[in-house]
């Protein structure tokens, strides 16, 4: 294809599982330049393949694996891809990023994206190579963990294949099931359930199709310099301690969600801190494919075991949020989520919600109490297989609270159905806005507004309309990083992040793109996600926080008294909508401009 930009194949693959047919479709150069790749290109593709309002767990619902122009380049942290679909948890757009050799092998199949629709008659494995698309039975691996299934499929197909697969939670349509690949996970929003609803256990990819670079020599020099910087002080926190080192900081600032957001400090946080666990547990380090930072810190419960990758989010969600202080319980719960294919944040959030319901007598679950580690582990098993109370909790905290009723909706910890990550919104009020307006729900990866709260630019306990432009900047930056795709932990190494992104895109694709044009691209991507949601039934009342956060102040500790009212949040949201150029209640003026 003569006008295909460097860094791209200029085409994507559409596979229909129902007919077992596939077709290759062209991706026009202007679409690629306007949407880049990953999350941006995926949103455009999702719009093309979702002509009307759909149920995400039906055959029509498209599941996308989207690559990017930077994959395969020597740029550090670029081996990432986006998995996208309408989320069964939120009923809104969902893009979940992951990082592994699957990204590199997937792009080497010769496609910039893979779109999967339909439903296989029986459990299937989809196998994609440059010149062939075929299907094999997955009967023998159905029921296995994603890792076990991937291992068996690789033994059968050969080591050149890289596998994305679901575990039991995806098979049982748990609304926050993950898709795993090489031990990493496309975690949020239940894309594993979308895959399970298609009877698709695994996608296996391999290939040899390479893309070209516009300025190879300069790209290699730039990449070497970037790798060198990635060894420097800006990323030392991630290398030496990992994201888990947020725990004591957040606890000290009174912003660590505890016992289903009833408190913002956890008295036993020290026990779970990496500073303590590094003494009590063996620890090793690892990294994603093509990453020079290596932020993965793997803790071992017993010497010689394969260990558990701990990040702040799984530590907070399966620890303080559930009132659990025993490190081994948190490590085991985390390993179990990986094995079963569960998003740790939503699993922890939903179980913490159920613990509060049980303690208040709203559900009959005598063992489900904050701090009961055995109950946590048992509930993870139950919900992954939809057994007993697990069937209700597999729906996520929003739907579960609607069934439980009795006021429990007020403290179900979600926005648009997506459980909140480990940032207490009453004490980080720019982040509160980011959560409320997020197109995929409460999310710290699509809005980095916590960065604003952790600065001298705002008072984190007192939201003002002036803060919204800062929140928008972090959202735009995330939209670009998720489309190029680069790891956000690289952020600190750049003096001017947007200029750096423009430079990297130029070296790979040859586009003469400046910061202003990148800003426009970011706005286009954010608008396109909003437009998708509007077409799928979004209404302004979804952009809010659970009542608890708007009616109750933080009761005690360092942030005692911190409060956010409904009126304040509404004012912030309106200021945000207007700053985005939307109507005050959040509709896009011109739907077509986002398409």
């Amino acid at each position, binding site marked *: 294809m003569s006008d295909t930009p460097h860094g791209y194949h200029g085409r994507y693959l559409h596979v229909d599982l129902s007919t077992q047919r596939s077709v290759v479709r062209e991706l026009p150069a202007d679409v690629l330049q306007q949407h880049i790749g990953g999350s941006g290109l995926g949103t455009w593709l999702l719009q093309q393949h979702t002509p009307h309002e759909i149920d995400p767990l039906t055959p029509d619902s498209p599941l996308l694996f989207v690559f990017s122009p930077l994959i395969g380049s020597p740029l550090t942290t670029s081996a990432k891809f986006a998995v996208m679909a309408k989320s069964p948890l939120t009923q809104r757009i969902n893009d979940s990023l992951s990082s592994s050799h699957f990204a590199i092998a997937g792009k080497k199949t010769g496609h910039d994206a893979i779109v999967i629709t339909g439903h296989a008659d029986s459990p299937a494995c989809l196998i994609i190579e440059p010149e062939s698309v075929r299907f094999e039975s997955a009967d023998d691996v159905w029921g296995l963990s994603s890792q076990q299934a991937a291992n068996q499929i690789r033994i059968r197909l050969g080591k050149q294949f890289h596998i994305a697969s679901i575990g039991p939670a995806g098979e049982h349509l748990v609304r926050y099931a993950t898709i795993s690949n090489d031990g990493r996970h496309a975690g949020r929003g239940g894309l594993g359930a979308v895959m399970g609803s298609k009877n698709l256990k695994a996608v296996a990819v391999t290939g040899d199709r390479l893309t070209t670079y516009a300025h190879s020599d300069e790209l290699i020099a730039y990449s070497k310099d970037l790798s060198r910087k990635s060894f420097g002080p800006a990323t030392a926190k991630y290398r030496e301690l990992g994201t888990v080192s*947020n725990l004591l900081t957040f606890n000290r*600032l009174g912003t660590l969600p505890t016992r289903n957001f009833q408190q913002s400090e956890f008295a036993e946080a020290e026990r779970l801190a990496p500073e303590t666990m590094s003494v009590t547990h063996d620890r090793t380090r690892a990294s994603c494919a093509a990453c020079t930072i290596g932020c993965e810190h793997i803790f071992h419960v017993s010497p010689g075991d394969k260990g558990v990758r701990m990040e702040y989010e799984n530590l907070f969600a399966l620890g303080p949020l559930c009132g659990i202080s025993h490190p081994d319980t948190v490590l085991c719960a985390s390993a179990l989520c990986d094995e079963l294919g569960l998003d740790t944040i939503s699993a922890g959030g939903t179980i913490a919600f159920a613990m509060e319901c049980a303690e208040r007598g709203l559900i009959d679950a005598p063992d489900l109490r904050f701090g009961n580690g055995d109950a946590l582990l048992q509930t993870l098993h139950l919900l992954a297989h939809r057994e007993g109370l697990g069937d209700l909790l597999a729906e996520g905290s929003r739907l579960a609270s609607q069934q439980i009723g009795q006021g429990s909706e007020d403290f179900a910890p979600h926005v648009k159905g997506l459980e909140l990550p480990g940032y207490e919104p009453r004490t980080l009020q720019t982040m509160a806005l980011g959560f409320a307006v997020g197109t995929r729900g409460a999310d710290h990866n699509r809005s980095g507004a916590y960065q604003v709260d952790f600065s*001298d630019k705002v008072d984190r306990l007192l939201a003002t309309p002036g803060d919204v432009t800062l929140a928008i900047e972090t959202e735009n930056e995330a939209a670009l990083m998720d489309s190029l795709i680069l790891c956000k932990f690289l952020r600190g190494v750049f003096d001017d992040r947007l200029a750096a992104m423009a430079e990297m895109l130029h070296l790979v694709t040859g586009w003469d793109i400046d910061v202003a044009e990148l800003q426009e691209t970011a706005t286009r991507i954010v608008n396109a996600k909003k437009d998708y949601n509007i077409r799928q039934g979004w209404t302004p009342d979804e952009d809010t926080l659970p009542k608890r956060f708007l009616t109750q102040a933080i009761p005690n500790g360092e942030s005692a008294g911190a409060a956010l009212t409904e009126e304040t949040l509404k004012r912030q949201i309106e200021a945000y909508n207007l700053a985005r150029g939307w109507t005050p209640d959040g509709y896009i003026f011109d739907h077509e401009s986002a398409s």
Partner: protein
Amino acid sequence: MSITVEFFGLARKRAGVASIEIDAHTIGTAFDVLESLLPKWADACLDDGHLKRSFLANVNSRTFVNDRNQPLQDGDHLLILAADVGG
């Protein structure tokens, strides 16, 4: 004027202590005192008398500060944290 400096994450690792009491009346003088008491921490965290951009200073767990002239009160807690708190 006695204040307590608390270190978190990498700043704690570099300081080798979780906290220390010092006399200082501004953020700037606090950094100067820390530089003489904890040279390894200063090497890693300070640049020309200011915190490197991978670190943040916070007073009493409320206000983030970036000005050497910012006054401190007796009994204040100065927290030194990582600037990037992505999870």
